[in-house]
């Protein structure tokens, strides 16, 4: 009999096709918008994380234990070649990048600015190469003492490709040193502050000025799965007790916070949309119940018991929701997959986005588990929406319900 009651519920949904269609479309659009927005935010956050991983922080960073305190050149990684060779054998390490790092002053004929200097291998496959706007990497230039600088710094110092500039900093003994460099390339990354505050020169040039030989200050590991960084960092710390091994989350807690918050944000967006949908569905179902007072009274009078009446109203609500939700989910999956490949170009807002370190092309993405969770959330919302109208239908007194409209 319950099957018959549910069949009746389905037919009741189409009693007022226009009203049901409006609710179904609202559920469809709400589901689509909620999931797509979540995918958009997730893609934006993931893009931000990827950008940061590319340029500013590795999944795991290995430095001398005192290096991070003062960025003093004397705290390099001893036997860094051996360490790098051993790390390259690890299966979970996808890529290793190394650099000498120090801070100092960049000067041109017009201005000066405090910068972080990165000494990179000539043959290094450094991620900054992806952002070169003009010129070449230091290692590929035929100029003497080539330097790669950011667009913003070039504007600040009022220099261009081929211009001379001076970099001054302390060597490993604390003495002031420096050298004249020629701009070989200009990069334009996703972040204005980064472009303004970082310069790249050859590792040999850098080490020569610092008084080092072949050492580096920083080894960055790119993992196959960055979320496993803590586990691998602990293992590495045991193997290299004299080095400081930190995860991206420890080095940049704001990134960890963003990563943790992304999931929460996605669910908050979805919950807000679902709450709006719940009220819309309750409103519609209440109208459906109240306009059928006499009919429901008749059903109770002729012998339809409360569980069956309750089931009928609940099934109507579930149908209303469950017709729109899967279509909305399919639509959102299609749009997220499509834009996940081609990206959403927000270059019109590039100034604002790059000021905060976001890329101008967003690639929406959403883990599959999220679709399952959304399904469960919508099912729960549908059930919640059904309860009040169904309860209301049970409160009808058959005698009054029938008499009221006779």
């Amino acid at each position, binding site marked *: *009999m319950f099957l*018959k009651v549910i069949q*009746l519920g389905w*037919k*009741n949904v*189409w*009693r007022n096709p226009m009203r049901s269609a409006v609710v179904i479309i609202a559920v469809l659009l709400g589901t689509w918008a909620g999931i797509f927005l979540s995918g958009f935010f997730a893609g934006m956050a993931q893009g931000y994380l990827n950008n940061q991983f590319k340029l500013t922080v590795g999944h795991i960073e290995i430095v001398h234990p005192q290096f991070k305190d003062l960025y003093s050149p004397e705290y390099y990684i001893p036997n860094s070649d051996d360490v790098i060779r051993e790390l390259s054998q690890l299966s979970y390490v996808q890529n290793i990048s190394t650099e000498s790092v120090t801070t100092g002053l960049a000067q041109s004929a017009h201005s000066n600015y405090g910068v972080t200097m990165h000494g990179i291998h000539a043959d290094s496959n450094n991620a900054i190469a992806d952002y070169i706007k003009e010129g070449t990497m230091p290692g590929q230039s035929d100029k003497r003492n080539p330097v790669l600088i950011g667009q913003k710094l070039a504007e600040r110092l009022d220099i261009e490709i081929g211009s001379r500039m001076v970099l001054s900093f302390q060597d490993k003994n604390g003495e002031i040193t420096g050298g004249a460099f020629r701009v070989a390339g200009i990069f334009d990354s996703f972040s204005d502050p980064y472009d303004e505050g970082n310069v790249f020169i050859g590792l040999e040039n850098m080490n020569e000025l610092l008084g080092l030989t072949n050492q580096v200050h920083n080894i960055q590991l790119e993992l196959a799965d960055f979320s496993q960084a803590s586990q691998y960092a602990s293992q590495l710390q045991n193997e290299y007790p004299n080095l400081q091994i930190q995860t991206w989350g420890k080095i940049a807690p704001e990134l960890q916070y963003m990563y943790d918050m992304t999931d929460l944000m996605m669910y908050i967006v979805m919950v807000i949309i679902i709450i709006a949908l719940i009220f819309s569905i309750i409103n519609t179902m209440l109208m459906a119940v109240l306009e059928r007072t*006499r*009919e429901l009274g*008749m*059903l*109770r*009078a*002729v*012998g*339809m*018991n*409360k569980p*069956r009446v309750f089931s009928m109203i609940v099934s109507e609500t579930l149908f209303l929701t469950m017709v729109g939700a899967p279509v909305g989910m399919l639509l959102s999956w299609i749009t997220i997959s499509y834009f996940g490949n081609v990206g959403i170009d927000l270059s019109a807002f590039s100034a604002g986005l790059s000021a905060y370190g976001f890329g101008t092309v967003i690639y929406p993405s959403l883990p599959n588990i999220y679709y399952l969770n959304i399904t469960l959330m919508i099912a729960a919302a549908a059930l919640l929406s059904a309860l009040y109208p169904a309860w209301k239908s049970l409160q009808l007194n*058959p*005698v009054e319900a*029938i*008499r009221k*409209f*006779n």
Partner: protein
Amino acid sequence: MAVIETTGLTKVYNADQVPVHALRGVDLTIEKGEFTAVVGPSGSGKTTLLNIISGLDEPTEGRTIVQGTDLSTLSDRQLIDFRLHHIGFVFQAYNLIPVLTAIENVAFVMQMQGRPQKECNETSRALLEEVGLADKINKRPSELSGGQQQRVAVARALSSKPDFVLADEPTANLDSVSSGELLDMMLELNEKEDMTFVFSTHDQRVIDRARRVVTLVDGKIDKDELRE
């Protein structure tokens, strides 16, 4: 054998505020196969009496015994089940389910009783033929006239194989031709099937054809006449 027996039925609405006495000690016995009209002016207590007989309402005092069962001893759930299996209802406004066809409306009560689908279909079809709607079985209520809808309602009332059919003003929304046809049909069922009908009405043409007329005035039985 008495199908319905009421003893000292009293119903007072708003007992705590301004009491309205709808029934004042009604004693009534309906035998099997009777075709009884309950008549009286508006507010005389006709509908209240039918509601109490059907277990839809409770008396303030008194007892209702239907087929030997004292309705006051039944729980809400048992009352619903009792109505489902023992009483057929015909309402003034037909009250068919608009999204179901005529045959589905008739079958619905049987389905609630848990009878097999095949039996539901066959019985519904036979009942609709009996009430003269063989060619309308797949029509929805909106495609039927008022008289035809009320015939479907009668078929639905009979589908549960009830002990009796209660009809509250069954002809009130019908024109004279449809009223006459409905009454003919109910009388025929009464005679052929020995089905007991109890109905409230204002319609003099219906009253004229009833075999027993119980007149209520101010919640009391004023007259109870049997006709041949």
